[in-house]
């Protein structure tokens, strides 16, 4: 089956991937997804702290602030394995995105507090950076910062201990952390397709101590850009895992399921469809590896393109493979009891996060050749 073919001279990557398999034995992904849905979308704190214990949260935090000092290769392999195992925790937002923001923040007490808490699992820091109807503004009053505005698409808001908030201040864009129980902060949640919940957070003169600022002005935008880059890569890897595993389950099911005296996977029309699904998954894996290579080659422009391509390819592959996987599971596939539907729902969520394929492709050609530039 399609695999991420990354160089792994000392076997670290295989170990990492195997550790996820072991973890999934204790915390089966599909079961956890159904239970989370039953709780109205709230994360299971036990699972997250076990993930922290395994060293998976904040993997990208630099060693200097207590991180594992591991890089994007490791995160990619981890995310792919989590996708395969359907461990549908908010790894993209609360680990990859958050760690990139915190890791790139100005050194200081707040950064250290967050980094230490994230790796230990005591702090769940969730980025809130997509503006809603009311744009986020920050103004300084009496040494505090008053936040007002609205942020959308915030993952795991109920479990968060801190939000990493991007706001516009008189001095430009700032990044700061806000305690989840800060007064003037209201969370309103809606059900996510994969059983999680997505919140809109309203800030209304929410007061934050000034020492909570993590980064200021121009650095902020660059930090955000990098966080998006890393998260898109991680999502692409996770989607690749979802796609490969959905395909595997489908091959197993159709090889097992007998109709008209033969396994349905022995019918040529089904075989060719499975082959097409496999090619898509294979290409997704290759695109992810290409993105990892490009990021390591330190050519920013090339890396941006490669990540856009990987997220677009993996998202499209996962969504389309999972759709066909559900269909090939026949009536079983249409039931909630069968895990394959959960893969589809997970794929939809991750695919729609940080840009659907069409949007990413347009961004790619604009960035590469300027086509479409200046359109609204």
């Amino acid at each position: 089956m399609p695999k991420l073919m990354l160089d792994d001279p000392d076997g670290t990557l295989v170990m990492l991937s195997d550790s996820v398999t072991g973890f999934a034995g204790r915390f089966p992904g599909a079961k956890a997804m159904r239970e989370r849905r039953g709780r109205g979308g709230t994360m299971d704190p036990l699972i997250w702290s076990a993930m922290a214990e395994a060293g998976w949260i904040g993997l990208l935090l630099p060693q200097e602030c207590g991180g594992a000092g591991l890089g994007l290769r490791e995160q990619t392999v981890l995310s792919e394995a989590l996708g395969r195992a359907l461990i549908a925790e908010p790894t993209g937002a609360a680990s990859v995105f958050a760690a990139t923001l915190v890791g790139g923040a100005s050194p200081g007490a707040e950064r250290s507090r967050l980094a230490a808490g994230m790796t230990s699992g005591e702090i769940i820091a969730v980025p809130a950076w997509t503006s809603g109807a009311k744009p986020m503004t920050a103004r300084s009053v009496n040494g505090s910062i008053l936040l007002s505005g609205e942020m959308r698409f915030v993952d795991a808001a109920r479990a968060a201990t801190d939000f990493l908030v991007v706001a516009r201040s008189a001095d430009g864009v700032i990044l700061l952390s806000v305690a989840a129980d800060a007064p003037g902060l209201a969370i309103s949640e809606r059900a996510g397709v994969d059983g999680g919940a997505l919140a809109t957070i309203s800030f209304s003169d929410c007061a934050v101590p000034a020492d909570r600022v993590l980064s200021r002005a121009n650095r902020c935008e660059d930090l955000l850009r990098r966080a998006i880059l890393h998260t898109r890569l991680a999502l692409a890897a996770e989607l690749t895992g979802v796609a490969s595993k959905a395909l595997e389950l489908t091959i197993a099911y159709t090889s097992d399921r007998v109709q008209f005296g033969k396994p349905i996977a022995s019918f040529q029309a089904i075989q060719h469809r499975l082959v097409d699904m496999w090619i898509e998954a294979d290409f997704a894996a290759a695109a992810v590896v290409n993105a990892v290579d490009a990021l390591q080659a330190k050519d920013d422009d090339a890396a941006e393109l490669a990540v856009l391509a990987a997220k677009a390819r993996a998202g499209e592959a996962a969504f389309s493979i999972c759709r066909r996987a559900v269909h090939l599971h026949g009536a079983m596939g249409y039931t909630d009891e069968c895990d394959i539907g959960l893969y589809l729902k997970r794929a939809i969520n991750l695919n729609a996060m940080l840009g659907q394929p069409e949007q990413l492709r347009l961004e790619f050609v604009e960035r590469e050749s300027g086509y479409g530039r200046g359109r609204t």
Partner: protein
Amino acid sequence: MAPDWNEVPDEEFRSVFRTWVDQNCPAHLRYMRKQRPLFNEVAEWYHALAAKGWLAPTWPRQYGGMGLSAAKHMIYVEEWGRLGCPRIPDHGIGLVGPLLIQYGTEEQKAHYLPCILSGEHVWCQGYSEPNAGSDLASLRTSAELDGDVFVVNGQKIWTTLAHCANWIFVLVRTERDAKVRQKGITVLLLDLTSPGVRVRPIENLRGETDFCEVFFDNVRVPLKNLVGKIHEGWTVAKSVLGHERIFLGAPTRPEYALERLRRLAEARGAFEDPAFLSRFARLRLDLYDLGSAFERYAKVLRAGGELGADVSALKIFTTELYQRITEEMLTVAGEEARFADDLGAGDVDIDAMNLFLDSRAPAIFGGSNEIQRNILAKAVLQLPG
């Protein structure tokens, strides 16, 4: 007896029917989100139709039906859909009624047909089994004759709305070692309140329970509940579907979904994006042309003809179009495609995810699209081997 509607001109019938339905179908039942409401949820509409004598469009008039021709029946179904009336649990009306009218004894007809019209009996259909999906003839639920009672053992699955039915029309194997697998199958009418019956609802991808598993553990069914001849139920079971097959390919679902897509796209300003417009135009034309193709088959029925196997083309096209439209809804939704619940679009809510998930079903049920393609390959294109 009821009037002979077939004597009434088409447009007059359409108008009379539409007016009455529009006045009598309760507003809160129109355009329901649920594709398959339970009996209780739509009982008032069911009884209203029954009282008017319009519950059973295709039954002969002497049994309390409307006795509509295929052409008139098309109008009935079209107006029903146009007015957003809910689907009613219709296995009694659509399957058991016609079956008994064709194969039932006089006693069976006298007993069961009125109970269907009154809503006293709510029927479901026990065909599929865990290992007999598209391959129906391989079913294993058995019935052994013990004096004048069949003893039924086994399991059915994908039994639509069994959890709100009290009778099941069930295919059972009465001969284990029949040489031709289609032989040795029998049709029974089985009271779901009998001892030994257990019904387990199955939740679907949308979190609803359209269908169930039904288990039979030494369930005793009187011999008089046999329909047709013993061992020869295959013919009975296969014969039930007549011109109704055309409705499997009716454009209803994609039509509804495209309208929702249009509303969503308008609210999101997507029509300003020519790339979306280009994709929308393709879907719109697919729907339009599906209408033309549907009309071609409807013409055959109106002219008193019979439908051939080629009508499967409609089923394939309509179900796959439905899927493509709902997939486009998720694209238009952008990051909002991450939500399970409905999306606001001006003054309406668009159930994009609900429709997307619902669109997975029709391509599977009623004979998967792969089976339909096999049928077309053999019966229409007459391809070898």
